């Protein structure tokens, strides 16, 4: 298993995403009320919560895909509301997103998918464009012959890897993963976790991972934040989660499935 680093103190580390007092809702329904969250540079943050509690909503609010009603979001020290459109474009180069279903462009091959952000944001020679795309495809563990396939010809695990290659196309500082291991078999999920940890170390990424996978939480996450009732219920390393006496966290981390994961992972 991978070696886990334990950030001794979080005080002196750079905050890469700072969410303050955010409120998001649709119509009458408020999903997030007064949520605060810090993500530190270089960590893998696991984000858990029951279905429908707004994990994806928070991710999408940070990415600017859903409007927020109140609060501030700072990424890399910049308030996202105060950015000009061109600064906003610059900002988008600093993050990569892996959507739950991959969201690969179905009309393009894997290689072309990886090249889309490169063509849009960078000025590259054709040779480099090809080589870099192939490099990213290999880095995520796909075989070179997958490069010319269409998304519809790929298996679920390969789609996730191809989507990860596209998310990494611009060497982002922050990687958002929305349930990266959902729909993968346990071995494939384990491999994918390991891949994320390896890439995180080699590329110096900060990873924000929405997940339900207890194995991922045990093996790769440095810190875990649990969402419930529109707020962060608890955050900290896995030990802090296990020690928490919030009823939902207790049943989440001490249930039957959790015990199995603990036996295997820790």
């Amino acid at each position, binding site marked *: 298993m991978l070696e886990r680093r334990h950030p001794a103190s979080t005080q002196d580390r750079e905050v890469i995403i700072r969410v303050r007092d955010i409120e998001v809702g649709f119509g009458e329904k408020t999903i997030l009320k007064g949520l605060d969250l810090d993500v530190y540079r270089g960590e893998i943050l696991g984000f858990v919560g029951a279905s429908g509690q707004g994990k994806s909503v928070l991710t999408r609010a940070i990415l600017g895909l859903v409007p927020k009603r109140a609060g501030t979001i700072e990424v*890399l*020290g*910049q308030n996202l509301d105060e950015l000009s459109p061109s600064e906003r474009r*610059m*900002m988008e180069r*600093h993050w990569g997103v892996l959507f739950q279903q991959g969201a690969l462009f*179905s*009309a393009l091959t894997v290689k072309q998918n990886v090249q889309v952000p*490169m063509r849009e944001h*960078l*000025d*590259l*020679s054709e040779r*480099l464009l*090809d*080589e*870099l795309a*192939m*490099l*990213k495809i290999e*880095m995520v563990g796909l075989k*070179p*012959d997958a*490069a*010319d396939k*269409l*998304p*519809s010809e790929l298996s679920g695990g390969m789609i996730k890897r191809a989507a990860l290659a596209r998310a990494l196309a*611009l*060497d982002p500082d922050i990687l958002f993963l929305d349930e990266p291991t959902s729909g993968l078999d346990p071995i494939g999920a384990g491999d994918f976790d390991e891949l994320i940890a390896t890439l995180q*170390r*080699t*590329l*110096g990424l900060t990873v924000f991972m929405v997940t339900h996978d207890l194995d991922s939480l045990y093996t790769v996450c440095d810190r875990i934040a649990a969402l419930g009732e529109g707020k962060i219920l608890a955050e900290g390393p896995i030990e802090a989660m296990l020690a928490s006496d919030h009823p939902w966290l207790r049943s989440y981390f001490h249930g039957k499935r959790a015990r199995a994961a603990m036996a295997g992972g820790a």
Partner: protein
Amino acid sequence: MPQSTLAHEPQLKIERAGNKVTAVLTGPWTAEHARSVESLAGEIAAQADRHHLIIDLGGVQRLDTLGAWVLDRTRHELGESGLASDFVNASQEQHILLNEVAYRGFQEQQKPKPSRFVDFLVDVGQTVAGAGSDLVRGVAFLGELVSAFLRVIVHPRRFRGTALVNQLEQIAYRGVPIIVLISFLVGAIVAQQGIFQLVKFGATPFVVDLIGILVMRELGVLLTSIMVAGRSGSAFTAEIGSMKMREEIDALRVMGLDPIEVLILPRILALIIGLPLLTFLASIAALLGGGITSWVYGDISPDVFLTRLRAAIGFNTFMVGLIKAPFMAVIIGIIATLEGLAVAGSAESLGRHVTSSVVKAIFMVIVLDGLFAMFFAAIRY
């Protein structure tokens, strides 16, 4: 945010000391500066001679996969021409990155490039074969439809009445305003042009015969069929195609439901019922348009118009248009369904099949209308 470093450019300084050449790199060697990174890497390669080349990364502020890739590629290419080079002063992270990207050639997958002539022949062949298999599939599907219809007649409880009513609303009821409007306009335009030509012969009143026969026999049903192919045929293809993409059709099958009975039969029956109704309305609207124009341009008062119309058209004229309508409905329905079922994986494929559903349906509607014209002429109806 590395705002300050963005202002900087990657830089290169070559230092020669004795038989050692050192390339000192500074600044950000990242994808933002891809062009200068590449050209500077070319300079490093050009500086290398028989001496040992040292690439000093001590001053590099940022290195990403692009920078690491280009540098390692340079080192690799120098190595191939027999020149040794080494990285020094790389930080731990840079070391990890350089090791991870480790240059290797990606052999291009060579795709054979056949000649344009061969491509053209292949294209023609595929089109002909495609048209043939379309015909076979169409006929086979018609058979399936009929057998599903018979099954439903034998077991009326399996008939989806609600779906049929819903489809009737979508196809017929909601289509009324646009179909009535365009028919009214086309009737008016044809009457106006007819009057302009007939007035030269002093035969203005014959515009009523012209309008009556043309609208009842051809225009009403053609305009309606083309509109329905565009409105409802495309909707069928898109609905069935996206249901197929999301495995909903397979889900129906494994639940023991026949997709033809559940999805397709109600739609095609709704078309068969709806199209004659719409054709009737379209014909009336076109006659109204023609009547108003005749009054305005040809001084033919409404009661004269009606009297002449009664003399000009018989019940058979009215029936010719109406008989064709259900056949048009079946053609549109079959093409739309087959195209929908042919949708594969991608969004692009969905778009392509919706387009081809509409194009093929309109084409076939016109071909069928021509065949009917020949048929009715032959039996003198």
